[in-house]
């Protein structure tokens, strides 16, 4: 695997990304498709704002009472037959899952797409323990073959074109090269069907978890989620605590918004409500269900001023409309989650020191906040985090000095005028300072300023 990109290298990553013409074309195509679909999906909705209000309220209510909802979920899932674990961090969750598999001698696992499993680097850990983990979502399967991380939370292989995917399949699966998406999909269907039927265990995430019933909810289009959770006798689900919603009646608010927000569909092809293990007399359902409830920093985030990021339902709309994400793609962020929600969540999960350059990755255009179905105040959170970054001193010293100078000059009209004159005179010199090439993109300050004309 090529050296993984880090958030600290965001600018360098983005410069490399901008030179990747294949990726840029893929991103341009996807931006257009996503926006068209989204518009179509919401065009027939009579009262979108009240839908958003309802969803936002439910998410807020959960965050305000999270402890209670987590306990309720755990209790109900347990009485339905699941074994529920509370994992404090990534390492704990990996260890729990590895132990479950080891204790049952399960060496072959099929996996439905789970961003949380990416967050904790589950696959690598299991593979080290000698477990074969096969991603079954087509996009995840593609990036798994390429030994890359997903570049988008819904469409993991968004950055790749059909030729690249064709080459991957030819190289790794021993099939003739084709770049026809239909043929490639059928190849994947055949290969993965075998894996589904052979697997000893299925690992999934969960889009939501329902406190009242102890159910986990899975949305997919491909059907791999259903296969992973019903074909092997052992099912392991990993999810973070903020995914809980109070009851099944609340689920309709999210069914209405998630697919439309994500891909413009009224409903994804499949949605499963999985409640515990198979009951006597039933012929569908896992015989063993293990649910790992992961914290990994959520309680800390909940206690802070950016807690509203936990309302996120992972629809991907914010990154689909983001001009920065659209230009550089997901890998440049060097994080599990890219785009606007990714900047915020990563800064909170990884800490400011490791991820502060991500806070530059926004023009503060605000379109992300506009499209968020659950009203996460993304724009406000970005401002808040920039403020925090300055307070923590993680800003370039030249910038800090310039801002301090600004703070003095702005209060004094005399100094301000003087400053205008000085910058005009020194403009040719200023733009020679390394890092100041931007000045060449700006016009020169004028001699006859407006204030002079008005005096």
């Amino acid at each position, binding site marked *: 695997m090529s050296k993984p990109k880090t958030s600290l290298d965001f600018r360098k990553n983005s410069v490399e990304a901008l030179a990747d013409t294949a990726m840029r074309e893929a991103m341009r*195509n*996807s931006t257009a*498709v996503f926006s068209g679909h989204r518009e179509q999906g919401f065009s027939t909705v009579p009262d979108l704002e009240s839908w958003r209000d309802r969803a936002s309220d439910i998410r807020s209510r959960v965050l305000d009472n999270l402890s209670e909802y987590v306990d309720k979920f755990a209790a109900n899932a347990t009485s*339905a037959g699941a074994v529920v674990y509370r994992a404090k961090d990534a390492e704990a969750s990996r260890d729990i899952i590895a132990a479950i598999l080891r204790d049952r001698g399960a060496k072959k696992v099929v996996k439905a797409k789970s961003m949380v499993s990416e967050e904790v680097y589950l696959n690598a850990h299991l593979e080290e323990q000698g477990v074969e983990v096969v991603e079954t*979502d*087509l*996009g995840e399967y*593609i990036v798994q073959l390429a030994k890359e991380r997903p570049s988008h939370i819904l*469409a*993991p*292989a968004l950055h790749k*074109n*059909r030729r690249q*995917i064709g080459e991957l399949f030819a190289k790794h699966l021993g099939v003739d090269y084709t770049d026809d*998406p*239909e043929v*490639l*999909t*059928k190849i*994947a*269907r055949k290969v*993965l*069907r075998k894996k589904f039927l052979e697997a000893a265990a299925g690992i999934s995430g969960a889009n939501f978890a329902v406190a009242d*019933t102890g*159910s986990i909810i899975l949305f997919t*289009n*491909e*059907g*791999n989620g*259903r*296969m992973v959770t*019903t*074909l092997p006798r052992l099912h392991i689900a990993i999810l973070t605590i903020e995914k809980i919603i109070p009851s*099944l*009646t609340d*689920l*309709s608010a999210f*069914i*209405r918004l998630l697919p439309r927000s994500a*891909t413009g*569909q*009224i*409903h*994804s*092809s*499949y*949605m*499963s*409500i*999985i*409640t*515990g*293990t*198979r*009951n006597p*007399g*039933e*012929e*569908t*359902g896992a015989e063993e269900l293990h649910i790992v409830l992961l914290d990994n920093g959520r309680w800390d985030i909940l206690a802070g001023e950016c807690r509203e990021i936990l309302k996120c339902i992972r629809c991907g709309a914010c990154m689909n409309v983001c001009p920065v994400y659209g230009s550089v793609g997901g890998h440049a962020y060097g994080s599990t989650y890219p785009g606007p929600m990714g900047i915020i969540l990563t800064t909170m999960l990884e800490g400011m020191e490791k991820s502060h350059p991500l806070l530059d990755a926004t023009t503060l255009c605000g379109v992300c906040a506009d499209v968020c179905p659950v009203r996460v105040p993304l724009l406000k959170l970005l401002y808040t985090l920039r403020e925090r970054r300055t307070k923590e001193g993680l800003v370039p010293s030249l910038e800090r000095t310039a801002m301090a100078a600004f703070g003095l000059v702005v209060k004094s009209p005399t100094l301000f005028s003087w400053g205008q004159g000085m910058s005009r005179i020194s403009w040719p010199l200023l733009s020679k300072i390394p890092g100041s090439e931007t000045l060449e993109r700006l016009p020169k300050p004028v001699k006859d300023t407006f204030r002079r004309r008005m005096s």
Partner: protein
Amino acid sequence: MTRENTIDIFLKNAKSVGAGTVLAADLDELKQSVSKIIEDTEPVYCPGKTDKEAAVIPPEEKRAPDYFSAQATVEEVFGAIAETGSIVCSSQDGRELQAGLLPAHHVAIVARENIFSTLDDFFSSLGPEIPTNITFITGPSRTADIELTLTVGVHGPERLDVIVC
């Protein structure tokens, strides 16, 4: 909303997501539509547990012993939701949801009286004890993971037919 309206809306929405749709007035029409839909397909699996299923069991030559080896499954499902054009499968009464998942073609029969108008109607109809698996199916299996080009028939069925009877 009248039952007729609900059925109409359901069929319209199911069609818009790529399901084949049929409204059968009685068991005879049901038999005819099923025969027509699976006329070129074999082998076909049918659980044969409900009355409607019993009416449409395929002839011996076409019959699959199980859903693993079947090209198509014909079965009655729990219900449907008009608002989204979804059918609802449930694991209660020993139903095997895998039957409608593994074969390439799923033919789902829905009783007219089991169509819910909205998602809220469906969820409020559920009692305190719910089955292990409730799955909504809205159209055939699909993906757009390659260049966001829609391809139908990934892991689940490539073809879904819904018959309201």
